[in-house]
C-alpha cells in the first residue's frame, strides 16, 4: 500500500463514520419519541400489580386454550348471518357508491364546484369513520339486529368502492368511446359499449376484494348488537367463557378462509 492509498482509506472511513453517526442520531430521536409515548400511555396507566406478573398473564392466556366444543352447533346460524351481512352490506355499498363515484369523477361530475367536492368528501368520511361507529349510529336509528350491521358495512364500503370507481372513470381511454360515437351510438350505447367494458373488470375486482374484507367487519358488528358471530363473541366474553371465545374466533377464521377461497376464484373469473 502506498502512503497515498492509506490516507484515502482514512477519508473513506471518516465519511462512513459520519454517515453512521447521522443514522444513529435519527434512531435515537425516534427512540426518544417512542419512549415518551410509552411513558405517558402504558407505564403511567397500567396497574402492574393487577397483571399478576408474567405467570399471571400466561395463566390468563392458557384459559383460552380450553376449547368449548359444545358451542359449535350454536355457531352455524350466526356464521351464516355474518356471511349474509357481508354480502348484503357489500351490495348495498355498491348501489350507494354509484352516485358518489359519479359526483367524484372529474370528467363526468355534473358540477365541478359543488358535486365534485361533495362526492370526494363523502368518500373521505366513509373511509374515516370506523365501522363500529357507523354501527353505533345505525343501532341508534333502527334498533338492534342484522339491519344496522348491514347498513354499517355498506356505509364503510362506499368510500373505497366509489374511490376506485371514480378513478377508473377518470382514467378511461377516450378512443373506444369516440369509436362508438362515430359509429352512431346514442348516449346509452356509448356508455354500455364504450365505457362500461373498460371499467367493469376493475370495479368487479374491487367489489370482490371489499366483500372479502367485509366478512371480517361483519363479524364484529355483533359487538354492538348487530347480530352474527360478533354477538356470540360478545356473550361469551361477558360470561368470561374463555374457551367459548376461542371457538368463536376459530369460526370467524374459518369463515374468512371460505371468503378467501371464494374471492380468489371469483376474481380470476372476473379479470
Amino acid at each position: 500500500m502506498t502512503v497515498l492509498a492509506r490516507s484515502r482509506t482514512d477519508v473513506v472511513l471518516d465519511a462512513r463514520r459520519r454517515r453512521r453517526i447521522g443514522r444513529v442520531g435519527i434512531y435515537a430521536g425516534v427512540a426518544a419519541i417512542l419512549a415518551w409515548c410509552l411513558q405517558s400511555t402504558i407505564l403511567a396507566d397500567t396497574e402492574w400489580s393487577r397483571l399478576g406478573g408474567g405467570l399471571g398473564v400466561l395463566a390468563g392466556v392458557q384459559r383460552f386454550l380450553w376449547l368449548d366444543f359444545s358451542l359449535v352447533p350454536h355457531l352455524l346460524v350466526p356464521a351464516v348471518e355474518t356471511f349474509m351481512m357481508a354480502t348484503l352490506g357489500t351490495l348495498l355499498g355498491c348501489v350507494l357508491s354509484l352516485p358518489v363515484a359519479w359526483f367524484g369523477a372529474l370528467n363526468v361530475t355534473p358540477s365541478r364546484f359543488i358535486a365534485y367536492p361533495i362526492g370526494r368528501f363523502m368518500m373521505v368520511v366513509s373511509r374515516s369513520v370506523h365501522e363500529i361507529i357507523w354501527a353505533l349510529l345505525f343501532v341508534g336509528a333502527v334498533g338492534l339486529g342484522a339491519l344496522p350491521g348491514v347498513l354499517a358495512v355498506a356505509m364503510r364500503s362506499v368510500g373505497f368502492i366509489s374511490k376506485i370507481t371514480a378513478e377508473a372513470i377518470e382514467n378511461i381511454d377516450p378512443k373506444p368511446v369516440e369509436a362508438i360515437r362515430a359509429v352512431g351510438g346514442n348516449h346509452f350505447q356509448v356508455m354500455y359499449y364504450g365505457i362500461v367494458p373498460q371499467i367493469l373488470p376493475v370495479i368487479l375486482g374491487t367489489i370482490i376484494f371489499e366483500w372479502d374484507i367485509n366478512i371480517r367487519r361483519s363479524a364484529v358488528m355483533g359487538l354492538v348488537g348487530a347480530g352474527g358471530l360478533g354477538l356470540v363473541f360478545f356473550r361469551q366474553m361477558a360470561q368470561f367463557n374463555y374457551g367459548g371465545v376461542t371457538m368463536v374466533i376459530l369460526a370467524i377464521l374459518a369463515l374468512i378462509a371460505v371468503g378467501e377461497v371464494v374471492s380468489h376464484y371469483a376474481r380470476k373469473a372476473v379479470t
Partner: protein
Amino acid sequence: MAILEVRNLRVRYATAGPEILRGIDFSVDADDFCAVIGPSGAGKSTLIRCINRLVEPSAGEIILFGEDVRALAGRELRRLRRGIGMIFQEFNLVDRMSVMDNVLSGRLGYTGSLRGLLRLFPRADIDRALHILDRVGLSDHIEKRADELSGGQRQRVGIARALMQEPRLLLLDEPTSALDPKISRDVMGLVKGLAREYRVPALCNMHDVQLALEFCNRVIGLQDGFKKLDGPVETIRKADLDEIYAMEVL
C-alpha cells in the same frame, strides 16, 4: 494440475422435465481461462451455476480444490462460495448502494453478521477495495450510486466485487452480452489481465465466439446439453464451430 473436475454432470429442473445437461465431463487447470460456448439453450448458463450450486445438479460429481461441492451445505457451502467470484450478465449490483458499498459486499462471506449489518468493514477491506477500484479504473466514482454508472462501469464494479473475495476461481456468465462491442473488448481484456495478475483460473460462459477465441486459452463447446468440443483454443476449427451452432436459428 486440475483444480476443477466435473464428471457426468446432469441437471433436470423439474422431476419430469427435460434434462438440461446430459452428462458433462471436463476439467479446468490452475492457469486456464476457459470459455464455454454454444447455442442458446445448450446449458452454458446452467453449467456455470452448478459450480457454485446456484443451480442444483441432479447427478454427477463436481470436485473443486479437492472438495466435493455437492456434499456441502449451509455454512460450508457459503465458505465455498466466498472463494468463488462470479460476474453476471446483468451486473447484479445493488442499484441504490454506492460503488464502494457494492464492492465491499464482496467480503460478506468473510464478515460476521453483526459487522455486516452495521456495514463495519475493517480497514484492511477498505484498503483492498480502494486498490482494486484503482485497478479497474473507477477511483473517481467510489461514492456514486451504482445506478448512476454506465453499463461498462457497472460491470467493472462487478469485477471489483468478485476480486474483493480473494477468489480461487472466477465464474463469468455472459459478462459482455449487455455491453456494446468496444466496451466488451475492454472488459474482457481487463478480466483476463486481472485473472493472470492474481493467478486465478476462470470459467467463462461466452455468447460471442470471436471474443472467446481471442481472450481464452481453452474452449468447451456445448450443444443441447452434451459436450461436443473441448480443447486448447488453437485446435478449434471452423468446422467444429459450425457443427455446434448448426441447429441455431437466428
